[in-house]
């Protein structure tokens, strides 16, 4: 037949039709009483062979359709053959909608989930920052063991030293985010401002859309106020008016000249600034140890490595106290004690932070789901290829090479892979939309997550890899076929042991993978539960409303008046119906806005710098509103604030650290901003950095000249319509120029601190559920198939007196052996793999016995169910029917 130059697809059809005919003839002969061997001989004799067929076929047009697919043929022909193979494969698959649908859906699930998470991983972790040559941008921070931190930012002294003396930087700039109030049309609105030094925008290669960027003189102290607008704010506030440059904007009560507008593409890390203001730094007042605050970004000169940059900074650090002498009470000893050292990392990394590890673990988890989907489809294809052995044998008999058969198999799986990939992309698009909705607030670069070109390329690669894997598996397994297969064609062809082994291995692998995912998600669930159990330093967070109030110096200048204003607001707030308590602090529980400071203890002197503690300026009502108990002593009163009494409160863990018992801390003295403060009270521990972090030791100072304070209001009316408006009215009744910013409930703040955990937990739980489902389908499919294969055997066994229970046990044993092997392997893999996720866990070890046991039991139960159903079916076989079908 091969001499005819038929198109491969056509040839395949002809082969199929002829083999059907031979088959029918064979069956007819056998039914007529001929023995199987004679029937085979007779049927083949009647088929005088390819030569005669070819003689009759030659005049036909289709015999000249295409040249055959031969190895080494020119590429054009290969592609033509491929496209024909693909068309044929698509048709074949359409004719088996059940099989195709299951295979495509399974693949779509695996590929879709992997694509969705890949788009997150790519958008968040891999996509370059939107600046020119982003790999040369670095974040410049410091390690400072004396301050107990590895991320000490920049100060005026470090900035000027580096700017003057660095050999590795093309340019260095500082930035800081600040909340401001912009008056627009009479109403004050809270906005975010980004303060930058003059070098920052040029080093990011940002060009103004309108006007000009900041000049060096703009950041000098006493320079006229100038502001740059972001594109979004320009459109929002100025209706995209082109003659905006030179107009005035009232920011925190002072007029600012609009210097220019930034392009729409400008987005700096995670900031969401409306306006950019100069970051003024005073060279003459800078001191080596003071004023650390703004973050530093630098552009490395071409070819400079991170290590070289670190070395250069290490060289410059000793210059700092020479250029900017220490100012009393700072001493040389304190400078040495801080131990300032460079910490230079790529700018892209400071955006990512903690979430990177979670995302890679998630990516690994969906990768496992994909593997399981692969295993299931591979199983399906193996079964299908087995059922088609007769077809392959006929083809081989009429002259098809193994290569041709393999090409046919690969074409089919290519069509499956592509269909699965396409459906997967659609799933991924929906999934990414969902992910962006439920992504934790802490997830950086959410806007960069999309199913884009790179993601699609990834999916395409995945689909093709899938296809090759599947096409080749049966092709290799069934590579060695012989003519003898024609004889038992269509009969109860007993399966070669090799194919059973492949299928069993696939099931074992699936069980193992599913177990790993179950354990991983189980550990996350245990972490989540443990986090819900901690004492966070507040009670019933859903009843606490928080908001910030900023008082610009233009509104009130005197610190005394400032405190009176804050007190008056508290008085008005508690008069709102339904309000139980109200108070204020520099920062709320876990929003991480507190500062660290070295705190000395009078009766526990230490050499060098004392340990750093969290410092939180507060005002009365804070603890009462939060529901954090006073363990010993008293809380603050407004009298303490108004008279600047030298008193402080400390957290229970700090009291225990020094004095063993909270009550013994009372009356002791600790260092404050202007001398010693007496400890008058001890309060319960507060978790400032999130529920999964240990409670820090905290010192509470009476608030001083703080112009940005957070209010807390406890009421059962929180979240009810109208309540917030009443609170706002209460604030405005004191001063109508005060906007409420960062309006959130304590519940929301807590949810944010748990967001990355709950995000990881939900995603892993979804992955594990899909894995469990795929595993169930996998085990069920294999046991069911083996049962069908052994129908004949079962019939004989039952005819010989085997009981239903015996048959059932036969299959159950098979399923249990596979499951237990899988569970053993899975436990081993989990022990090795869960170690990477220990950073995500809280009060649960990666080897948590309860989780491992529960996951194993759950999986074993599901596997048993998946085995039992087909086993019961097999044992229900009527021996007569079984034997007849097996004749």
């Amino acid at each position, binding site marked *: 037949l091969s001499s005819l130059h038929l198109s491969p697809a056509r040839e395949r*059809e*002809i082969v199929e039709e002829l083999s*059907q*005919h*031979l088959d029918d003839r064979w069956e007819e002969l056998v039914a007529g009483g001929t023995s199987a061997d004679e029937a085979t001989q007779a049927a083949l004799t*009647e088929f005088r062979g390819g030569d*005669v067929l070819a003689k009759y076929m030659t005049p*036909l*047009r*289709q015999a000249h359709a295409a040249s055959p697919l031969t190895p080494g043929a020119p590429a054009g022909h290969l592609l033509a053959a491929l496209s024909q193979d693909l068309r044929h494969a698509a048709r074949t698959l359409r004719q088996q909608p059940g099989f195709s649908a299951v295979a495509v859906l399974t693949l779509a699930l695996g590929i879709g989930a992997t694509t969705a998470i890949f788009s997150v991983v790519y958008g968040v972790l891999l996509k370059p920052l939107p600046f020119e040559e982003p790999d040369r941008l670095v974040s410049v921070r410091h390690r400072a063991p004396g301050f107990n931190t590895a991320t000490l930012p920049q100060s005026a002294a470090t900035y000027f030293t580096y700017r003057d003396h660095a050999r590795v930087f093309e340019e260095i700039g500082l930035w800081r985010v600040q909340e401001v109030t912009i008056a627009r049309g009479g109403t004050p609105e809270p906005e975010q401002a980004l303060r930058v030094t003059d070098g920052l925008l040029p080093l990011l290669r940002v060009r103004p859309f309108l006007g000009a960027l900041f000049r060096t003189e703009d950041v000098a102290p006493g320079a006229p106020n100038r502001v740059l607008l972001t594109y979004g704010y320009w459109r929002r506030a100025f209706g995209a008016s082109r003659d905006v440059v030179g107009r005035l904007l009232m920011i925190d009560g002072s007029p600012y000249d609009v210097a220019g507008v930034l392009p729409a593409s400008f987005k700096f890390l995670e900031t969401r600034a409306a306006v950019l203001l100069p970051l003024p730094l005073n060279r003459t007042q800078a001191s080596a140890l003071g004023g650390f605050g703004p973050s530093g970004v630098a552009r490395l000169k071409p070819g400079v490595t991170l290590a070289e940059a670190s070395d250069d900074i290490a060289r410059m650090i000793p210059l700092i106290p020479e250029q900017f002498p220490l100012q009393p009470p700072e001493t040389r000893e304190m400078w040495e004690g801080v131990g300032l050292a460079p910490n230079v990392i790529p700018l892209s990394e400071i955006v990512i932070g903690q979430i990177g590890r979670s995302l890679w673990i998630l990516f690994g988890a969906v990768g496992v789901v994909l593997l399981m989907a692969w295993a299931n489809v591979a199983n399906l294809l193996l079964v299908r290829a087995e059922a088609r052995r007769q077809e392959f044998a006929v083809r081989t008999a009429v002259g098809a090479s193994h290569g041709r058969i393999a090409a046919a198999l690969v074409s089919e799986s290519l069509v499956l892979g592509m269909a699965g990939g396409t459906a997967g992309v659609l799933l991924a698009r929906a999934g990414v939309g969902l992910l962006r909705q439920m992504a934790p607030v802490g997830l950086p670069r959410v806007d960069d997550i999309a199913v884009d070109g790179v993601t699609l390329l990834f999916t395409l690669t995945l689909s093709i890899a899938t296809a090759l894997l599947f096409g080749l598996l049966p092709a290799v397994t069934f590579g060695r076929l012989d003519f003898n297969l024609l004889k038992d064609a269509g009969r109860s062809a007993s399966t070669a042991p090799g194919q059973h082994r492949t299928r069993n291995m696939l099931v074992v692998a699936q069980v193992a993978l599913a177990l790993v995912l179950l354990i991983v998600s189980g550990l996350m669930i245990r972490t989540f539960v443990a986090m819900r159990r901690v004492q966070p330093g507040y009670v019933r967070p859903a009843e606490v409303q928080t908001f910030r109030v900023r008082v610009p110096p233009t509104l009130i200048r005197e610190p005394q008046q400032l405190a009176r204003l804050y007190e008056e607001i508290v008085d008005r707030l508690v008069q709102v119906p339904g309000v139980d308590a109200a108070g204020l602090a520099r920062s709320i529980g876990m929003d991480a806005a507190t500062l660290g400071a070295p705190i000395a203890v009078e009766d526990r002197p230490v050499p060098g710098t004392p340990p750093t503690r969290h410092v939180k300026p507060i005002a009365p009502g804070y603890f009462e509103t939060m529901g954090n108990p006073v363990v010993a002593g008293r809380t603050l009163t407004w009298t303490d604030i108004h008279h600047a009494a030298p008193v402080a409160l400390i957290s229970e863990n700090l009291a225990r650290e020094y004095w063993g018992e909270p009550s013994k801390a009372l009356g002791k003295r600790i260092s404050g901003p202007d001398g010693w403060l007496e400890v008058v009270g001890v309060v319960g521990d507060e978790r400032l950095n999130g529920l999964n972090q240990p409670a820090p030791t905290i010192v509470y100072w009476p608030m001083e000249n703080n112009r940005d304070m957070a209010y807390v209001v406890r009421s059962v009316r929180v979240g009810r319509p109208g309540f917030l408006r009443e609170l706002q009215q209460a604030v405005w009744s004191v001063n109508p120029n005060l906007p409420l910013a960062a309006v959130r409930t304590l519940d929301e703040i807590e949810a944010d601190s748990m967001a990355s955990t709950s995000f990881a937990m939900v995603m892993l739980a979804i992955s594990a559920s899909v894995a469990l489902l795929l595993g169930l389908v996998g085990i069920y499919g294999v046991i069911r198939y083996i049962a069908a294969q052994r129908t004949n055997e079962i019939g004989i066994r039952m005819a010989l007196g085997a009981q239903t229970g015996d048959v059932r046990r036969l299959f159950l044993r098979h399923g249990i052996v596979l499951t237990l092997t899988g569970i053993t392997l899975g436990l081993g893999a989990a022990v090795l793999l869960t170690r990477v996720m220990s950073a995500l866990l809280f009060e649960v070890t990666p080897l948590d016995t309860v989780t491992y046991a529960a996951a194993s039991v759950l999986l074993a139960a599901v596997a048993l169910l998946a085995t039992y159903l087909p086993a019961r079916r097999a044992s229900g076989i009527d021996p007569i029917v079984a034997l007849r079908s097996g004749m």
Partner: protein
Amino acid sequence: MTDINTRALDRELKRGSAELLILSVLEARPRHGYDLGKLIHARSGGQLSFHIDSLYPLLYRLEERGWITGRWVERPGERRRRFYKVTAEGRRVLAQQKRTWAAFVEAVRRVTGAEHA
């Protein structure tokens, strides 16, 4: 199924009367190749029998001419089979050929009938 019959049929094939045979068998309803061969064998009382290697090329030729079309049909529990049915063009050709054939048979009958009369 004898050689003589086969050779005779092969000759008929070349002349085109086998085409008429197939078209008329398929006219009633679509059939697959094996069924078709068996039916012709049975209806001819075993006198006419197609070989697998001449039947299928003939089917393919009719299909190329657009007189019949083959379509894969799948039935539950069975392998798919290719069923052939007569196209509109095929029916026209068949009607034409039947008329020709009838005329020919009539002519032969008259000639032979006249001889025997």
